[in-house]
């Protein structure tokens, strides 16, 4: 499986996702944002970080960059797209995903391990997980507070487009288990065709027992098969 990781000035989780993809046996390429052509890829990853320093608004400038036109084209032809953290923010800026990510509710950057629950395992990204499976996963963001309009929220629920929700160790959704104030504890969403996933948590940080755990691996193995 061929993957491409788009690198913007200010991306800083590009190496991490690159290492994770290679570890999981993807044939990965790093693609600099100024390149006008994307290599042929089955998966495009937009990594975390602070593209363009998050100036103006997180993801806003990257969302208008040259390579993004190629990403949109690829997305429309069914290529799998994964946006992690800043990548999720960029995807909402391009319109590939609806909704937006606001400043965390407590106005502070937050980095810690939290819990999320798999809400739909019937997708190319999640089929190796069980429904309702709880993952311990790392988050690191300042703007992860997912928000959208009522209509989109209804659609997300009805069409089963919510990928993950923040919960506690036992799987309970409530305010305490919501680290950033996200609407309905939403941690990640799909587009209608379910070929695009945007998520705030970092699965690439959870593929190595020595530094954390392996709760993120099944996301990658799902994509492989």
């Amino acid at each position, binding site marked *: 499986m061929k993957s491409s990781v788009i690198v913007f*000035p200010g991306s800083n989780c590009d190496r991490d996702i690159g290492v994770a993809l290679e570890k999981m046996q993807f044939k990965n390429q790093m693609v600099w944002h100024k390149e006008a052509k994307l290599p042929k890829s089955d998966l495009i990853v937009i990594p975390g*970080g602070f593209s363009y320093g998050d100036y103006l608004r997180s993801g806003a400038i990257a969302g208008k960059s040259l390579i993004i036109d190629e990403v949109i084209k690829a997305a429309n032809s069914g290529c799998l797209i994964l946006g992690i953290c800043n990548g999720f923010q960029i995807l909402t800026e391009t319109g590939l995903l609806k909704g937006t990510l606001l400043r965390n509710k407590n106005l502070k*950057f*937050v980095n810690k391990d939290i819990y999320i629950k798999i809400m739909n395992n019937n997708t190319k990204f999640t089929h190796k997980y069980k429904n309702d499976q709880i993952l311990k996963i790392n988050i690191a963001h300042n703007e992860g507070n997912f928000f959208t309009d009522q209509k989109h929220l209804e659609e997300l629920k009805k069409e089963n487009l919510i990928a993950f929700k923040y919960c506690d160790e036992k799987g309970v959704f409530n305010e305490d288990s919501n680290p950033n104030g996200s609407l309905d504890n939403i941690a990640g969403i799909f587009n209608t065709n379910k070929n695009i996933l945007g998520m705030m948590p970092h699965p690439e940080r959870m593929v190595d027992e020595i*530094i954390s755990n392996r709760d993120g691996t099944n996301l990658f193995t799902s994509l492989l098969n």
Partner: protein
Amino acid sequence: MIITNQIVEKHGLKHEEFEKIKKLLKRDPNLLELGIFSAMWNEHCSYKSSRIHLKKLPTKGKQVIQGPGENAGVIDIGDDDAIVFKIESHNHPSYIEPYQGAATGVGGILRDVFTMGARPIALLNSIHFGSPDHYKTKSLLNGVVSGIGGYGNCIGIPTVGGETKFNETYNENILVNAMAVGHAKKNKIFYSKAKGINKSVVYVGSKTGRDGIHGASMASAEFDENSEDKKPTVQVGDPFTEKLLMEACLELMKDNSIISIQDMGAAGLTSSSVEMASKGGLGIELELDKVPCREENMTPYEMMLSESQERMLIILEDGKENAAKKIFDKWDLDFVVIGKTTNTNNLTLKFNNKIEGEIPIEALASKAPMYDRKWIRKKPQKNNLDIKDLKKIKIEDALIKILSSPNHSNKNWVTNQYDQSVMCDTIQKSGSDSAIIRIHNKDKAIAVSVDSSANYCKSHPLTGGKQIVCENWRNLITVGAKPLAITNCLNFGNPENQEIMGEFAECLEGIREACEFLKYPVVSGNVSFYNGTNKKNIHPTPVIGGVGLIKRFTKPLSHNFKRDNSKILVIGKTFGHLEQSCFLKENYSILDGMPPEINLLNEKNNGECLLKLIDKNLVLSSHDISNGGLITALSEMSLNSNYGAKIYKPKKLTNLFKYFFGEDQARYIVEIENNNLNVAEKILKDNNIYYEIIGFTQKEYFELEGELKLPIKSYLK
């Protein structure tokens, strides 16, 4: 323009220093030249009060590749790998503008590390605030923590550890020390020493603005009630540009284009060009009209003294300009040849083809003033405390008082604002004795810890100086790392005051003694004097950042108890030294007396023996005993664990407060499985190490035989 006494004074130069300038130049300086002298001769850049003492520190060892004097220290960790690290203060700017002050502190130290060819892999910090009740503390704390996080998170280097402390001595002068650690290939270290004549001097990075002019001079004077007016001298950080600059520099460093490279830190273009030329024994000529400027009509004076961030000066090999420029173009950074090296041994500054200033390099560097300031030795205080005279309290209450004090309480509020996991090599984060960082793609790791003991240093600087080195060394040992070298950040008050100078000299004597004995050399560091406001000086606060090596990494050794019913040992002797302890401070507000004595032989033997036990996989968890004594360390081991402990009644020391809260040094708590106990005891005995088996781990309860029994879940958490 005639240089009046008033102008000289405004530049922070003493009358006799001005006379010396005239003598060196054999004429009066113009304003530009005076500004340059003031930038190079201030305390911050010239180390004029400290040099004479710093020279005494041990800086060599077979693990040392580069000691003090470069942008950062470099040590050998085997194979091809080198670790580059340094700690630096940004106290004055952070007090005036906490967010930017702290942020640019992080930015500056990162540049010191990647300038040498290392990719930064970890950030740490030591931040000290006034009393939590002081009206400024909350906003300063907020600003500093956001600033540290804002910079490190954006650039994508994990902030993995450090210390956040409170003490009223910092009410009007906080401390913000930032440490960066990088990894480089041993044969690809870059230095600042210029070589060769007529080589291109290249300016790269951000444009120059009017920010930070005379920042280094500000850091070389005490604060007064008008300190707020100094806000414009604080630089503004841009971590995004720094990220680009870092990537561009590291890319350029892959081949052999660079002769020398130096970041523009304190005193910006001035100090970087002078340092490169002085180390190389050359001259340097700059055409200032070529300097990329952010603001219009900047004068040579402003350009030379600006402390705008995220800039570097590079001396390139002939013919490499085009290829190098391509890399900086890719990263959207300025790249301009602004001058050349010369054989004149002068700093020559041209503007619109006219020479605006010309100063012999040695006048700025080696001939800068050096003072042997008068100092007085601190008299040892008497320990006349009798514990029987104190009001009776319960052990449980005393412990809770310590654990809930600002200096001991959980700091997740702080550390959760730092990205500790980015780069995916953080094995152990803050909250442990040391952070552990894996060397990317290898099975070895380094341990890093930052420590200080201002109260000990205040009461007896010589002992205090020794103690922090030892505590830092212990913190590396307990995670199974062999301590290799340290960097130090020496935060003191006004050196013109003999008592303060004495604190400095004696702390350094202590650091020297301990480093020499433990073969734990100092490879980099920074001195920050004039920490005080209106003649009120801070406690002497040397901060030690140590790096150790874990050769083959298997699993992290944390201080949490790991199993049920394993034995708990204390390595090292408990005497029950209570003076200067947290116990007396938190429960009785007693601050007098001497700190615990340091026995370097015991430190060395106990530490090295514990490393042997760890290397033989005999240790389940270990923790050094420091502030708060044995009981505090034990409860910290239960805190994030499922297991508590049952501790026997002490056999020798009958006063329980002395036994549990005494802060005797050279001690460790070690958890050892019953099956391994015999082997471990044999090793301890063979090495003549004093130890005691003080109890065992158990589920659910933290128990002191016959004294207290507390469920760990409800009480410790």
